[in-house]
């Protein structure tokens, strides 16, 4: 809530809490009217959450599934970002390099990352390899494009000034261009992280042995609405947690700037 331009006054807190309370009241009321197969009641959700946390469901407990999914998402994200940032900087700095890489990127870019899932399964099977591959594709493009844009939009005066003072080569890149492009790079990282989480959930829904997507899929097959709600909540919570972590990291990495709103 804080990273958006929302008011964070007391009024918003009171009204918001009241709205949530009313919604929960209607949920309880509604679930007694609608058939529970279609729409779970709060008790069912709590029971499902308890079951997932203690006994486990779909091959593991909540902790195992969540950590497994987060581990895969973060691994794919890290590999993609480690490739995309240097490539984006190189593309932004050298027009020749850009001419070489750009056709490939502009060919890959329009294909939605989720469309890679079937081919990833053909190439790597249902294991972790396919998922990391899909996440790699998902996370790669936003970071690359934003890094490139960030490098190209560094204030030319800054570059000229640094050059006048004798900076060139890696000094120019690491002390002027990269810090200048950093806000855009982080925008790209945020998009990439959220996209990789979405891609992971999708890949796990298609086929997996562990993970929150697997919980969702099994719950859907068993027609267990309580568990579906729990799994969705876990997906949202883990996604939010990772985004908050990245925002914290962004603050540490760019102490001179206030996070982009």
């Amino acid at each position: 809530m804080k990273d958006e331009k929302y008011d964070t006054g007391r009024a918003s807190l009171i009204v918001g809490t009241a709205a949530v309370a009313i919604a929960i009241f209607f949920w309880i009321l509604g679930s007694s009217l609608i058939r529970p197969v279609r729409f779970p009641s709060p008790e069912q959700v709590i029971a499902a959450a308890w079951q997932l946390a203690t006994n486990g469901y779909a091959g593991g407990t909540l902790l195992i599934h969540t950590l497994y999914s987060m581990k895969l998402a973060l691994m794919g994200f890290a590999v993609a970002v480690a490739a995309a940032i240097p490539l984006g900087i190189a593309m932004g700095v050298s027009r020749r390099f850009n001419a070489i890489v750009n056709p490939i990127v502009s060919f890959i870019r329009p294909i939605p990352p989720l469309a890679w899932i079937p081919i990833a399964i053909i190439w790597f099977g249902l294991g972790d390899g396919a998922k990391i591959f899909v996440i790699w594709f998902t996370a790669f493009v936003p970071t690359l494009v934003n890094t490139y844009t960030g490098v190209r939009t560094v204030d030319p005066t800054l570059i000229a000034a640094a050059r006048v003072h004798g900076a060139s080569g890696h000094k120019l890149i690491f002390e002027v261009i990269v810090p200048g492009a950093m806000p855009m790079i982080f925008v790209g990282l945020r998009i990439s992280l959220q996209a990789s989480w979405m891609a992971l959930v999708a890949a796990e829904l298609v086929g997996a042995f562990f993970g929150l997507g697997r919980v969702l899929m099994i719950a859907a097959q068993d027609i267990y609405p309580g568990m579906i709600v729990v799994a969705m909540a876990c997906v949202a919570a883990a996604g939010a947690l990772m985004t908050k972590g990245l925002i914290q990291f962004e603050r540490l990495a760019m102490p001179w700037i206030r996070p982009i709103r």
Partner: protein
Amino acid sequence: MKQVTQLPRHMPANNSVAALMLLSSACVTVILGTWVLSSLMGMLRPSIIPPPWDIANAIYTLAVSGFAGHTLQTHIITSLGRFAAGFSLAAIIGIPLGLIMGWCAPARYVVTPFFEVFRFIAPLAWLPFAALWFGTGIGGPILIVFSGAFAPCVINTFHGTRLIDPVMIEASRTLGATSWRLMVDILIPGAFPSILAGLRVSAALAWQSLIGAELIAATSGVGYLIVQGQGSFETSIVLAGMISIGIVGVIIDALLRLASDRASRKWMAAEA
């Protein structure tokens, strides 16, 4: 892709556009050539990476005799219908919601907690409920498209209204503008560029979510086509499907960009 920076010194300034184009095409040629050559020499297994002519052939076969129940055109049209329905639903609900959130603080307070939760749910996580509530025919995928497209619509519209100079809003209120006039004359024009940007983001996310939904729970559509191709290990069909998905995505984006260019030009002209 604006070229704002001056080029660093180690690049010759006489690097003409033609030379760069040549470099690009050389790169593409090298990649395609390696692909063709290595498939001809049998170094690539066709079940892993089929040669280009296999993919072209697959597109032809798909268009003529079809796969997974329908021809390629029918699959694409089915997908586009779901996309259009979910996307317009998201725009029709999302844009007014964003405007109201920007204009009326109590509405913002009420909506924010729900929206913050909704925003973090990956669109595809709705899939089990989509299938349970609306089935896998047309209703389920529409819910997924909606949940992909909704958040960017709301966020961009809301941010657009917040970018409007508060003095303008105050001034129009002081001069006695009703809520309706405020909405039509200040909020919508002011937020317009942002709304259009949001629609493009929405469309991309919606198209991608739809493909994901069709991979998992559908019995027609391009996503279903490629997952069926995967099931029968027809790699060239999968790749042909991916290419058509990419092309349709590009067309959607190009149309939206065209519309937004047109609209903003008209808007600017009307304002001047």
